């Protein structure tokens, strides 16, 4: 029997494996499968890449669109899918190889991690609005559960808080879905896009705002992102790395995908999102200055980068969009390095607080070196990947002759340097009484090293991949092509 | 051979002139104060006496080399100042140098000596050096500004060319550029260690000054170089403002009249503290200089 290589596996495989988990426990295959699933998905994505670059793959489930449900893998969503699989691979490899906390290695963690991957893949791929809601809830529920996995008071608190705010977001989004259906009578995104202009103006605004609040909360945009630091701080750093690595990216992608697909003229909405992005970036970077918990600091830093990406995507020019997508990928790699390093440091020194980590760089030189690398990359210093994508974004703004985002981005980077370099300085603090470091599994460094290697590689040779992102940007921005791919050339 | 003889002649001339001028100064000073004062040769005798002292106390090698550096500096300075114009003699190596170089050569020696003072280990000596450098900092600004005005006027830094341009009394620097002369005059007195700017080496309540540790032959060396340096500076000013000199008698006459002028000014003012001196240099001569720059540089360029 041969299984056709289709995008549906991105959702189906993790779902199936997750629900069959009791079997894997018995067969002692839990860890290999946890790492193997994203690995297989990554291979699948790579295998599909040549086809995707020619034309978007539309996978129909049962009935053809616009009536049925379909998954659509184009150049833009491919980037996200590959990113999700790759991030999942590195994070799970860290859990396995790093011999980490037992609660990350049991069956529940296995289920929720795979569900999270399935949910995010589904969100990115689906061409159906209600399916989007379903996948949004799947990834949401698994994320709430992952946050609470440790089952001590902070973890449960994080899970509860996440659940409360996440449910509200879901309600808002559901409300928007309901209104859309009532107005258009369609759920297929392409069909909605065709009919959206026919909705009365005030209703468009209401739907838009409902979606903005719903997805804005999930995509961590200011002023809907006040929950983020608490949740990142309460969750295990690896889980937080997944949130920052692909969960929020998936939501952000969905948000902009909807904007560019539904609106014939995304200018106004784009300007709103640019404003929100700029506010997110600046506020988060400023607040990060006073953080003394590494996870919380990284959370704010992550917010800042999300704001930058929103700023870039909202502008809607090809160069900024390509740069924004590239920055998404780069930020994922960087935050993975930083959060996994934070996990190593936390395991070594039990605490993630600034005061307790003073001098840690001399006890854990490798971890500290990775932290420095990640910090340099996140600030956009060459020759690391953060620089390449930031340059691309800024170049896009400069080409268009718009300079206020350039000024804000550079200001934010300067503020960011203010706290990252404080952490670096403290990590290398000369201290007579070095903190006692608990042993960590050396293999745990392997996934970090892979990500770090990519950070350097993409920084030195971004021309290896820049075509992918240009095609992704074109796919994201070209509304007509997206519609005709689903509905046929005549529409 | 010519160069060697010429150099020796220059050194000799400046030596003799220096001691005679300062001998005159002592006597003149005494007469003004209604004393008889020493003979005009007294300085020369003192100097000879120092040179033939049999005992000299030193504080380490640098203490010995400092006076040698300052003496070599004095010789070099003298050799780079042209004494006469339109003559082959008493030129030294001045065609290889220029005005700015001479100004800087004037301070090479004192800095070399400062090393010796430092190595003596006497804090009062070092205090004197610091005072000297402070005074230098004060006087150099208006001094150099005045020189710059001269250089700008003649569009050259070569002393020869400046001298050559002053071919008649009407073209003397003091006539064509009186502001520059006024600006330079007081700092010049300061650079000659003259009153009222002579606190550096002067007796105060505890003896402090660069020479506090020196004695014997080393003190003789210091004395000699000071006389020669003074003459070098006098001749330089003669070259710049009084049209230079065509023969040695004119040179002595012009230098002496300039010396007399500075001596007279020195005598009527009470001594200033170092900080007061610096402040004075930065207010009066420098203010005059700024005014001069505005008048001679800015205004013509605006009206043009």
């Amino acid at each position: 029997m041969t299984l056709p290589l289709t995008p549906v596996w991105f959702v189906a495989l993790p779902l199936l494996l997750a629900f069959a988990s009791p079997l894997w426990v018995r067969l002692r295959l839990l860890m290999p499968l946890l790492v193997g699933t994203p690995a297989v998905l990554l291979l699948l994505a790579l295998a599909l890449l040549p086809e995707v670059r020619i034309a978007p793959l539309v996978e129909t489930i049962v009935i053809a669109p616009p009536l049925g449900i379909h998954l659509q893998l184009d150049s833009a969503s491919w980037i996200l899918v590959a990113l999700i699989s790759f991030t999942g691979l590195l994070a799970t490899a860290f859990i396995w190889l790093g011999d980490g906390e037992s609660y990350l290695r049991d069956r529940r963690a296995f289920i929720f991690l795979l569900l999270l991957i399935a949910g995010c893949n589904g969100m990115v791929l689906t061409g159906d609005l209600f399916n989007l809601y379903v996948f949004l809830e799947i990834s949401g529920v698994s994320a709430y559960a992952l946050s609470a996995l440790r089952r001590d008071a902070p973890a449960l608190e994080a899970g509860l808080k996440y659940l409360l705010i996440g449910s509200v977001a879901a309600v808002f989004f559901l409300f928007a879905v309901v209104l859309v259906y009532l107005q258009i009578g369609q759920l297929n995104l392409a069909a909605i896009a065709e009919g959206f202009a026919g909705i009365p103006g005030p209703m468009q605004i209401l739907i838009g705002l409902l979606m903005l609040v719903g997805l804005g909360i999930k995509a961590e945009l200011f002023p809907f992102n006040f929950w983020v630091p608490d949740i990142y701080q309460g969750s295990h750093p690896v889980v937080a790395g997944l949130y920052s690595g692909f969960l929020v990216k998936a939501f952000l992608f969905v948000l902009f995908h909807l904007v560019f697909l539904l609106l014939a003229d995304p200018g106004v909405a784009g300007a709103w999102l640019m404003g929100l992005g700029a506010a997110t970036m600046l506020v988060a970077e400023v607040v990060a200055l006073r953080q003394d918990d590494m996870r919380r600091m990284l959370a704010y830093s992550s917010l800042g980068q999300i704001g930058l990406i929103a700023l870039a995507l909202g502008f809607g020019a090809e160069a900024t969009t390509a740069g924004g997508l590239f920055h998404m990928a780069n930020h994922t790699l960087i935050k993975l390095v930083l959060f996994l390093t934070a996990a190593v440091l936390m395991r070594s020194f039990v605490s993630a607080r600034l005061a307790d980590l003073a001098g840690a760089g001399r006890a854990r030189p490798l971890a500290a070196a990775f932290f420095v690398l990640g910090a340099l990359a996140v600030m956009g210093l060459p020759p690391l990947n953060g620089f390449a994508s930031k340059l691309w974004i800024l170049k896009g703004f400069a080409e268009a002759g718009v300079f206020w985002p350039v000024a804000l981005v550079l200001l934010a980077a300067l503020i960011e340097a203010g706290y990252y370099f404080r952490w670096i300085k403290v990590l290398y603090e000369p201290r007579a009484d070095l903190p006692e470091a608990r042993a960590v599994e050396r293999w745990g460094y392997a996934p970090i090293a892979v990500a770090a290697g990519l950070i350097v590689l993409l920084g030195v040779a971004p021309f290896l991949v820049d075509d992918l992102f240009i095609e992704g940007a074109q796919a994201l921005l070209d509304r007509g092509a997206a519609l005709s791919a689903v509905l046929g050339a005549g529409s | 051979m010519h160069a060697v003889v010429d150099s020796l002649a220059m050194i000799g001339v400046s030596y003799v002139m220096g001691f005679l001028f300062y001998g005159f100064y002592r006597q003149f000073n005494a007469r003004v104060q209604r004393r008889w004062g020493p003979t005009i040769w007294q300085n020369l005798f003192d100097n000879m006496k120092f040179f033939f002292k049999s005992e000299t106390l030193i504080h380490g090698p640098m203490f010995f080399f400092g006076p040698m550096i300052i003496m070599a500096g004095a010789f070099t300075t003298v050799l780079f100042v042209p004494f006469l114009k339109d003559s082959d003699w008493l030129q030294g190596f001045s065609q290889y140098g220029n005005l700015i170089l001479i100004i800087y050569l004037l301070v090479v020696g004192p800095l070399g000596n400062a090393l010796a003072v430092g190595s003596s280990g006497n804090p009062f000596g070092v205090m004197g050096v610091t005072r000297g450098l402070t005074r230098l900092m004060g006087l150099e600004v208006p001094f150099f500004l005045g020189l710059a005005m001269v250089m700008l006027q003649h569009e050259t830094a070569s002393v020869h060319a400046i001298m050559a341009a002053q071919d008649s009394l009407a073209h003397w620097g003091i006539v064509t550029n009186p502001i520059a002369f006024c600006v330079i005059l007081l700092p010049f007195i300061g650079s000659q260690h003259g009153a009222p700017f002579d606190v550096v080496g002067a007796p105060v309540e505890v003896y402090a000054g660069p020479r506090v540790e020196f004695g014997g032959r080393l003190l003789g060396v210091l004395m000699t170089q000071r006389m020669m340096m003074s003459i070098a500076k006098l001749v330089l000013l003669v070259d710049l403002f009084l049209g230079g000199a065509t023969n040695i008698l004119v040179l002595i006459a012009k230098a002496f009249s300039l010396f007399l002028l500075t001596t007279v000014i020195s005598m009527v003012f009470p001594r200033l503290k170092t900080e007061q001196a610096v402040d004075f240099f930065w207010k009066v001569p420098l203010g005059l200089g700024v005014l001069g720059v505005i008048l001679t540089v800015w205004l013509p360029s605006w009206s043009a």
Partner: protein
Amino acid sequence: MLAFLNDPGVLHGIVVLGTLILFFIGLYGLLAKRHLLKVLIGIALMELSVYLLFIGLATSPGETAPILSDGLRSFTHMADPVPQALTLTAIVIGLAVLALGVSLAIQYHRLTGRADVASLTELKEPR
């Protein structure tokens, strides 16, 4: 007597009004109550109001259930089946979220003895 309710406009108006009231009750519970379970119930109420709104507005008076059976052989005068299917799905999802929330709340209560939203203060900005 209630015949005016057969007018779709009136009925839909009542549905909108009712569900909005329900929505705001839920929102009030979510924002003002301090017990975790009450807050969760507030969320459930909000979700419920959205379901009701969906079903209510997607159906007009006189439409029957979209099921073919004896005598009903064509899809005329039937309600649109999609909202109902969607609502069912949404209810299942909402239930899952609610269950997870309640279980977390119970665990939190067991661990700390507290069930107050305001007592979730372990994670906060540094002073």
